[in-house]
């Protein structure tokens, strides 16, 4: 990141949402990298950019495919690399051919010349990096969006090389680690496929138990299964779905109907309040031993600094005790015991002893044995001739706008996101005072506010097909006409997710938090103050 030539932050407001990571972006920028920010809003991240590409919500594929077409037509595609290391290029080329600059401008709203310049800069750079977050993945076609970005990197050969790559930014320090350990429905530890008989057999021998030969449900599928009354018991660890999920009226109803509902958390969250049993857990960053894996796949040790308060217990202890009650004695394992067992079963972690993690300040997986240095980046294999392992496929994806389009009744698009000083549903961040905390607001473009006579700070009512709520309006020049913005940080005051849609991507299970149709109305009767002129509001909004 710090030694690359061009950085695309696509659907990522890293300045606010990943502030630590953004320091690394800024180091890259100070070393000369050009920064492109693709976001419907001109966020504080975009204000740092050389070019802000302010696309319409959900038009990412139109933009990416149009960039691909420019790159191909200009002869800047990485021909040899494509031929040697990828598959399905012809189908891809045929698909993007219809994404002309004119079409892309019409769908994204971004001037064609700007799209063209962005494509050329990315293609011509020796090193280039694409980072994305929820602006890409919280859509009904999340996986397609990701494919569109992967295609660009393959097209220009910007994978598996120093200073290049594709980087989905993680929302917590250990999101990656959760996946590493097999806390996903279709994989066992170390991303081993659970439908693979040999893999399962290995784990079954080690654990002396049977493992189901089919994937489990993801979060979205679980709620669907609850709806069918197929899922009746739920054990939630460190998650707050009663406030973080889309279409909360429905979530509340489903959680309320469970036969048996267990929550394990360090706070008594809204979700925990609904549970039949609550296990107070230790805070994993200071009251427990273990490891975390960060965005660059680096496994690092976490050390216990203090004892957990009151009756709170280590997660590992709680799980072991439950296992005991269920008839499986794990034998009071320490974190290192559990880790070593995992190493014996998951080859990519085999070389990571606690001693080595200490000595090397963490290691990046895969790390196959105790002399392996870990791997700085994946996919370098694509550059060997012939490439090792499976070739990288282009995935043909087409532009598909969000499920819910604005209409006469609901003329605005609501998109949701985060603010610098708050974290997710506020479980960890709303309990302290911050001069930046200003509560929830409905951010609205000055043109819309002016047209509707809504003043800055005035209460407005926002209504979607699923719910309705009131919040103060905030005029924000970062927004384009027709777009409003809210966060999920203050669910107790403004439960934004009562408005959001539960449309989701069948491939990933992610809900479309980034787009739903709403109506905005002033709630003050009578005369309204005229809003300030555009220039003064621009200054207030922090534009420039």
């Amino acid at each position, binding site marked *: 990141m710090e030694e690359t030539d061009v950085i695309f932050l696509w659907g990522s407001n890293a*300045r606010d949402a990943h502030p630590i990571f953004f320091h690394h972006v800024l180091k890259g920028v100070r070393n000369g990298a050009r920064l492109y920010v693709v976001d419907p809003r001109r966020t504080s991240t975009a204000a740092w950019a050389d070019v802000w590409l*302010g696309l319409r919500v959900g038009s990412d594929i139109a933009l990416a495919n149009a960039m691909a077409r420019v790159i191909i037509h200009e002869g800047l595609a990485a021909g040899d690399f494509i031929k040697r290391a990828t598959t399905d290029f012809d189908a891809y080329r045929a698909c993007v051919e219809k994404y002309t600059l004119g079409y892309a401008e019409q769908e994204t*709203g971004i001037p064609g010349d700007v799209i063209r310049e962005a494509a050329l800069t990315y293609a011509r750079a020796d090193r280039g990096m694409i980072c994305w977050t929820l602006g890409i993945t919280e859509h009904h076609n999340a996986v397609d969006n990701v494919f569109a970005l992967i295609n660009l990197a393959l097209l220009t050969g910007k994978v598996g090389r120093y200073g290049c790559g594709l980087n989905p930014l993680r929302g917590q320090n250990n999101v990656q680690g959760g996946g590493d350990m097999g806390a996903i429905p279709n994989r066992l530890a170390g991303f081993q496929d659970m439908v693979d008989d040999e893999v399962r057999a290995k784990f079954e021998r080690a654990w002396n138990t049977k493992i189901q030969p089919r994937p489990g449900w993801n979060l979205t599928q679980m709620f669907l299964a609850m709806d069918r009354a197929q899922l009746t018991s739920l054990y939630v660890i460190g998650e707050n779905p009663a406030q973080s999920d889309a279409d909360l009226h429905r979530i509340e109803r489903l959680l309320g109907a469970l036969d048996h509902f267990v929550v394990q958390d360090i706070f008594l969250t809204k979700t925990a309040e609904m549970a039949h049993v609550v296990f107070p857990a230790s805070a994993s960053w200071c009251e427990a031993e273990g490891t975390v894996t960060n965005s660059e796949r680096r496994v690092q040790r976490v050390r216990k600094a203090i004892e957990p308060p009151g009756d709170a217990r280590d997660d590992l202890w709680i799980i072991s005790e439950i296992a005991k009650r269920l008839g499986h004695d794990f034998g009071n394992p320490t974190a290192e015991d559990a880790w070593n067992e995992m190493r014996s079963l998951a080859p990519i972690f085999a070389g990571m002893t606690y001693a080595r993690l200490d000595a090397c300040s963490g290691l990046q997986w895969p790390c196959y044995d105790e002399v392996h240095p870990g791997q700085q980046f994946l996919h370098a294999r694509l550059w060997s001739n012939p490439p090792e392992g499976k070739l990288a496929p282009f995935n043909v994806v087409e532009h598909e706008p969000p499920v819910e389009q604005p209409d006469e009744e609901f003329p605005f698009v609501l998109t949701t996101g985060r603010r610098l000083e708050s974290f997710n549903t506020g479980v960890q961040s709303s309990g302290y005072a911050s001069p930046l905390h200003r509560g929830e607001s409905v951010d609205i473009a*000055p043109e819309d506010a002016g047209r509707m006579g809504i003043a800055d700070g005035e209460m407005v009512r926002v209504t979607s097909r699923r719910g309705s709520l009131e919040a103060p309006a905030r005029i924000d020049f970062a927004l*384009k*006409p027709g777009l409003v913005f809210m966060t999920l940080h203050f669910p107790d005051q403004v439960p934004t997710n009562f408005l959001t849609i539960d449309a989701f991507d069948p491939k990933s299970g992610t809900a479309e938090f980034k787009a739903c149709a709403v109506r905005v109305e002033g709630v003050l009767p009578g005369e309204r103050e005229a809003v300030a002129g555009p220039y003064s509001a*621009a200054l207030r909004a*922090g*534009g420039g």
Partner: protein
Amino acid sequence: MDLHLLDAEPTAEERDAVDALLGAPTSGWDGGVRDPVRDTHVAFGGHDARAQRHLLLPALRAVQSRVGWISEGALNYVCTRLTVPPADAWGVATFYALFSTAPRPKRILHVCDDIACKCGGAEELIGRIEKTIGPPHHPPTNGGPIHVGDFAWVRSPCLGLCDQAPAALLQEFGASPREEPIGSATVERLESVLSGAENSGEAAHPRAKRAGEYTLLTKRINEVDPTSLEDYRAAKGYAALARALEIGAEAVIAEVTRSKLLGRGGAAFPTGRKWDAVAKQPARPHYLVCNADESEPGTFKDRILMESDPFALVESMTIAGFATGCELGYLYVRGEYPLAFERMENAIAEARKAGLLGGSVMGRSVRFDIEIRRGAGAYICGEETALFNSIEGLRGEPRNKPPFPVQAGLFGKPTVVNNVETLMNVPHILLESGEKFAKIGTDQSTGTRLFCVSGCVQRPGLYELAFGTTAKELLELAGGLPRGKKLQTVLLGGAAGVFIRPDELDMPLTFEGTRAAKATLGSGVFMVFDDSVDLRDILVRIAAFFRDESCGQCVPCRVGTVRQEEALHRINSKKMLGGMKREVALLDEVGAAMKDASICGLGQTAYSAVESAIHRLGIYSGGAR
């Protein structure tokens, strides 16, 4: 960039002033009217926007010059245009004495009360101004009513008109601003200039006294029209650049090295070595900076050179740029020098028109151009790294060294920075050869030196002398003291220099001669005090000057300059803490801390003059008055 802007809006006048410099804004994001289609789908910024930071000082100056002060609205607009956080820009705007961030009249008279003018009767003049015009201007206090009249006057540090003491500078802000330096000021003359009946006259025709057999630097002064390139060329102008282009960059540096030319800014670094070091740096681009921020009290030589022979400086800079591989040079002219700025601006424009600057200098494939920058009243910006920061649009605070400018100077690139006088020697060296130049003066101090003679002498002014002349000879050339006056002391090198005793006048005015006598030539100041001057007052003025001009960045200087001034006040008002001996010990200790621990030369020399007055003259032990 994170911009947290204020609510304040610019007036049409403020907006105009900024737009006249930067051009009209191009979108709603840089201060223009928001286009609801384009501006909501694309914005540009980043590297290009941040690269404009160096325009902050000119933009603030544009507002100051048009409106007379910099309002929050104007600051907001400048920040929006240049992508600079307002808090940051506020730090810059408040750094410079010639900028006001509070409402002020559109006409301001700066009356110098610094040491040379004090000798020339500044306090008497100020007393009379107070009687006839009224008290000096004070910025409105917080919350108090703001009453801004048409005119105000303020006391000012040295205006660089010491040969014409007492001096003043009139500034009129507006669409066609006017700046008039006023030498030999009387109330009557001030009133006549204020009424517009008279322009400053005297200052427009700088006096240059010539003495001795050498006129390397002063030969064209008062002889050649400083606004005419044609006349300059007729007077051997641009022969040196032609020769430089002919012999090549390496040979130019070799010639300068052979001349043994030492820097005239105060540090006396060998110019040839500096040039060679920059020329060999692989990093590109290289920058040339000409330090014309002459602010040492008592110094006015660079002003006279720029006012009287501006094309010679343009030519000298072009040679230096060519020799060291620079394609761009910055000329940073002191804010208080309107005429020098005007003459230099004209000379640069004329040279550009004639193909002597630009893409192909003298028709060769040599690229060199000069950007001119004007300071805004900050002594510290004469320090080379503070000067870089000032050009870059930052507060003019010195940087830590290393890295040295030859490695990482302006914009972090290899930079050759030279004083005006130093550079002006170069054409002569090229035309006559370095060896011939090295024969002038002494073995270790080659060439001539410009001395700024001021204070209690019959003929103050600029004197060009071969190195080796003694202080006594210079005093005699300047006509000695007025009849009936007795010499008390001479201040060598300015406020950062050293007072010498009358029995030390045999000191040769060379780098090595002054060094051996634990004195300094500094910037060539030679300020004479007769026995009627109360030196204790002068010391307090010097201490006040350093306290005021300290940038405040490092503790020894920020605190030390205040403690020094306090102690001198206590001594003068006979309210000493524990007696004279203790006060002097305290001054010595504070002085040593400033000298040892300050980041830059300001703090390191802030005690120099006071120390010499105490220990050389014995001012507090009955030595001097």
